[in-house]
C-alpha cells in the first residue's frame, strides 16, 4: 500500500483550481471576474480529461487503500466535472458581474471535489471527509443569492446537513466500534462476525447520511426548498452533481457489506420511498424549479435501484453509471430551461413558449420526457438497464414498482409540457418579445437535450465503457 497521490490528480486539480479562483477573485476588479470563470472551466476540463485518460486502466488503490480509482470513480469524475462545467455555463447568465461571482465558482469547485472524494472513497473516514467537503460549500452556495427564500433554504439545508452529518459519524463510530477498522477491504469479513444489531444501526446511519447528500428519503427535506430558493445555476448543481458522489458511495458501501442482513431490501425500501414520495409531492407544484426539486427526489429512488442489487447482478454497476450520466445531462437540460427564463416561476407562465421558441420548447420536451424515461433518450436506456438489474438480482417487484412510479411521474411532467404547447390567448401572442431567453442557458438547454438523445442512441458504446 502506498500513497500514490498522482492517482488523485483530478481531485487535486479541482481543489487547486478552486483555491486559485478564490485567491485571484479577490484581486480582480468586478468587471474582470470572468477570468475566474475561465480558470474554473479550465480546471474542470482538465480534471475530466485526466479522469478520461485514467479510465481505461485497471482498478488501483490510492492513499493507503482508502480510495479506489476504478471505472466507477472514473465515470463519476468525468460526469461530475462535465456536469459542473454545464452549471458554469448556466451561471454565466445569472451571476456574471454579480458581487459574489468568483466565490460561487470556488464553492462549486470545492463541492465537486467533495463529490469526487465521496465517489472514490473505500474507507468510512474518507466517506466522512467527502461528505463534509461536498456539504459545506453547498450551504454557502444556497445562501449566496441573499434572498429571504435563499436564506431560509440555506438554514434548512445547514441544519439538516449538520444532523445527518452527525448521524453519519455515529454510524461510522458504531461500525468502527464492532470491527476496529474503517477500511472497506477489511470491513466485509469483520462485520460478518460482529453483532448484527450494531452493524445494522451503523449501516443505516451511514446510509442516512449519504441519503442527505443524495437528496433521497429520509434526508430529502431540504431539496425542494433549496431548488426553489437558491439561484438557478446553484439549484441545477445541487440537485445533480452531489448525487453522483453520494450514490456511488452508497453503491460501494452496500457492495462491501456481508450477506448477513437483508441489505437489498433496506435499500429497495429507501428507493421505493424516495421515488413514490418525490413523485406524489411533485404533483401539484406550480413553481417549475420546485417541481424539478421533487422530481430529483424521485430520481434518487430510481438511482438506488441498482444500488439495492449491488454485487448481486453484473448489470448493477454499469446500469447505475449509465443512469447517473443520463440523469445528469437530462436534469441539467431541464434546469437550463428555467434559468433561460429566470422570471417565469409559474408553470402557466410558460404558455406559448413552444411556439415562440421552438428549439427551447423541443429541448424542454426532450428533457422532461427524458426524465420520465421515454426512448430514445439516455435516461430510458438507464432506466431499462437498472430495472433489468433489479429483476436479475431477484427484485422483480422493485422493477415493477419503478414502472408504476414512472407512470405516476408522467402526469406532473406533462403539467409543464401542456402549457408550453397549449393554446395561447390572443394578448400573449401580440407580445413579440415575451420569450426573450438568457443566451447561455438557452444554448445549454438545447445542447444538453441533444446530448441526451445522442447518448441514448450511443448507449451501447457507453455501456461497454462502463462495464469494463
Amino acid at each position, binding site marked *: 500500500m502506498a500513497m500514490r497521490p498522482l492517482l488523485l490528480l483530478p481531485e487535486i486539480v479541482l481543489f487547486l483550481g478552486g483555491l486559485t479562483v478564490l485567491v485571484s477573485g479577490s484581486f480582480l476588479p468586478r468587471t474582470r471576474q470572468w477570468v475566474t470563470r475561465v480558470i474554473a472551466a479550465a480546471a474542470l476540463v482538465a480534471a475530466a480529461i485526466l479522469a478520461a485518460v485514467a479510465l481505461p486502466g485497471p482498478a488501483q488503490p490510492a492513499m493507503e487503500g482508502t480510495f479506489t480509482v476504478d471505472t466507477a470513480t472514473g465515470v463519476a469524475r468525468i460526469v461530475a466535472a462535465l456536469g459542473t462545467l454545464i452549471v458554469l455555463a448556466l451561471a454565466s447568465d445569472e451571476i456574471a458581474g454579480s458581487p459574489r461571482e468568483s466565490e460561487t465558482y470556488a464553492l462549486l469547485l470545492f463541492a465537486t471535489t467533495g463529490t469526487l472524494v465521496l465517489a472514490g472513497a473505500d474507507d468510512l473516514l474518507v466517506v466522512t471527509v467527502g461528505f463534509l467537503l461536498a456539504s459545506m460549500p453547498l450551504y454557502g452556495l444556497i445562501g449566496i443569492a441573499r434572498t429571504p427564500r435563499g436564506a431560509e433554504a440555506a438554514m434548512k439545508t445547514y441544519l439538516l446537513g449538520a444532523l445527518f452529518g452527525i448521524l453519519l459519524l455515529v454510524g461510522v463510530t458504531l461500525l468502527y466500534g464492532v470491527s476496529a477498522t474503517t477500511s472497506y477491504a477489511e470491513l466485509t469479513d469483520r462485520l460478518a462476525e460482529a453483532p448484527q444489531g450494531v452493524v445494522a444501526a451503523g449501516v443505516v446511519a451511514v446510509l442516512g447520511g449519504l441519503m442527505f447528500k443524495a437528496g433521497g428519503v429520509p434526508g430529502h427535506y431540504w431539496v425542494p426548498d433549496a431548488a426553489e430558493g437558491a439561484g438557478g445555476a446553484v439549484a441545477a448543481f445541487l440537485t445533480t452533481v452531489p448525487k453522483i458522489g453520494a450514490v456511488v458511495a452508497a453503491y460501494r458501501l452496500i457492495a462491501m457489506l456481508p450477506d448477513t442482513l437483508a441489505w437489498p431490501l433496506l435499500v429497495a425500501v429507501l428507493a421505493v420511498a424516495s421515488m413514490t414520495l418525490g413523485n406524489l409531492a411533485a404533483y401539484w407544484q406550480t413553481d417549475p424549479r420546485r417541481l424539478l426539486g421533487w422530481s430529483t427526489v424521485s430520481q434518487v429512488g430510481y438511482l438506488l435501484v441498482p444500488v439495492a442489487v449491488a454485487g448481486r447482478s453484473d448489470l448493477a454497476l454499469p446500469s447505475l453509471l449509465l443512469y447517473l450520466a443520463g440523469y445528469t445531462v437530462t436534469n441539467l437540460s431541464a434546469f437550463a430551461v428555467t434559468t433561460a427564463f429566470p422570471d417565469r416561476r409559474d408553470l402557466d407562465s410558460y404558455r406559448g413558449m413552444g411556439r415562440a421558441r421552438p428549439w427551447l420548447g423541443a429541448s424542454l420536451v426532450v428533457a422532461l420526457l427524458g426524465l420520465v424515461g421515454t*426512448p430514445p433518450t439516455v435516461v430510458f436506456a438507464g432506466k431499462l438497464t437498472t430495472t433489468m438489474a433489479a429483476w436479475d438480482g431477484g427484485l422483480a417487484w422493485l422493477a415493477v414498482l419503478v*414502472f408504476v412510479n414512472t407512470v405516476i411521474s408522467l402526469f406532473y411532467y*406533462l403539467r409543464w409540457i401542456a402549457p408550453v404547447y397549449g393554446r395561447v390567448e390572443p394578448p400573449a401572442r401580440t407580445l413579440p418579445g415575451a420569450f426573450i431567453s438568457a443566451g447561455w442557458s438557452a444554448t445549454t438547454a438545447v445542447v444538453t437535450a441533444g446530448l441526451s438523445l445522442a447518448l441514448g442512441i450511443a448507449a*451501447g458504446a457507453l455501456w461497454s465503457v462502463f462495464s469494463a
Partner: protein
Amino acid sequence: MLSLIVFLPLSAALALLALPRLGDAAARWTWVAVAAADLALVVAAWLRYETPAAGGLAFEEQAEWIPGVNSSYHLGVDGLSLPLIAMTAVIFLACAIFALRETDRPRLQAALFLFLQSVSMGLFVAADLILFFVFFDLSIVGMYFVIAGWGHGNAARSAMKFFLYTFLGSLALLVGFIGLYIAADPHTFDMVELAEQTPLAGSSLAGGLVLAAILIGLAVKTPTVPFHTWLPPAHTDAPAIGSAVLAGVLLKMGTYGFVRIAMPMLPEAWRDWAWVIIVVGIVSVVYGALVALAQTNFKRMVAYTSVNHMGYIVLAVGAAGVVADDTAQARSVAVTGAVTQMVSHGLITGALFLLAGVLQDRAATYDMDSYGGLAGPAPRFAAFFAVGAFASLGLPGLSGFIAEFQIFTGSIAAAPVTAIALVGILLTAALFLRSLQRIFTGETRGRSVGFTDLRAAEVWSVGPLLVLSLLIGVFPRPLLAVIEPAAEVAVELVGR
C-alpha cells in the same frame, strides 16, 4: 431497404423543421411527396418480397446497438408485417393529401406526421423488443402532440388521458419484455431468437405473469374492454387525420403485438390463457357494438366500432390458442383473418374518420341528429360514406367481409362458443344503416343545408382507401398469399 423506408419520413421531418422559411404550401406538398415516395418504396419491397423460411424474416438488417444487454438494431418483415407497413404507408399518404387544405401550422403538422410515420413503420419492421418498445413509446408521444396541438373540444384533457393511459400500457409491456429477457438463456431481446427459445416454457406461473404484463400492455393499445376508455375522448377531440392515423395505424400496434410477440414467444402461457383472451374478445365485440349503437355523435360511434372490430382480432388470436387435434387449418384461417382485418380496418376506419373530419370542417358538429337529407346537397360525400359504412359492417365484396368471414370460420371451428360474437356483426350492420338513414335520407334540414360536397383533395385521400378495400374484397388472393404462410407459422409456433 427497410431502414430507408423507416427513416425517410423522419429525415424529411427534420428537414422541414430545419427550414423555417419554407412556405406553408411547399411544406404541405413536401409531405405528400415524401409519403408517396415512402409508399413507392413499400410497393417495391412488396414486389421483391419472397416468403422467408419459417421463423425467418425477409430484408433483414442487423447492427449492434446495446450489445451489453443483447439488444440490436434488427429489422425484417414477413407476411404478418408486410401488409401492415403497406397499409400504414397508404394511410399516411391519404392523410397528407387530406391535409392539403390545412391552415393551422401546416409545416409543424407535416413534420409531426412524418415523424409518426417513421415510428409506425419502425414498429412493424422491428425485430428486437427494445427497438419495438422505442417505436411504441414514440408513437404515443407523437399522437399526444397531434391531439393536443390540432384537436378540438377538450383536446388538452383528452390528450393527457390518452398519454397517461397508453403510457401505462407501454410500461406494462416493458415489464413483460424484461421478464422475457431475464428468462431467456442467453439473455436477449432479439425477437427471432426469443421465438425460437420460448424462454418461459415449463414455468406456468412466471409465464402467466409475463404474458399478463404483455397482454395488458397490448390490450390498452388495441384497445379491448376494459382498457378502452381512453379511446372515445381521444378520437372525438383529435383532428380528422389524427383519428385516421390513431385508429388506422396505432391501434394495430396492439393487435400486431399479439401475433408477433405474445403468441410465438409464450406459446404455452398463450394456450393456457386462450379462453380468457377469447372471452375478452367476445366482450369487446358485443360491448363495443352495443355502446356504438347508443351514440348520437358520429365520431364516437366509429370509435366504439373500433373497439368492436378490434375485438374480432382478439377473438381470432385467442381461438388460435385453443389447440386440439386437426384444428390447425382452422386456426390458421383465423389468424389469416385477423391480419386481414388489421389491414381492412385500417383502410375503412381511416376513410370513415376522414369523412367525419369533413362533417366537422363544414358544420362543426358530429351530432348525427343535426343532419338530415345530406345526400341531396352532397351526393359524393353520401356515396363515399355509404361505401365506407358497408365495408365496415362486413358486406361481401369489400375487405371487411373477407376478414370477418375468415375470422369466424376459423374461430368457430376451433372454439364453437365464439359464435356468440356474430351478434356483433348484426349490431354494427344496424348501427351503420341507422346512421346512414339519419344523416343522408329524408328532407334536407339542419346543418345539411348549404353543405358543400367533397373537394378534390378529400376525394383523392378517401377514395383510394375505399378502392383498396373494394379491391381486397373482390380480389383478395395477392394479400392472402402473403399473409397465409406467416399465419401458418404463427399457428405452428403457438402449438409447440
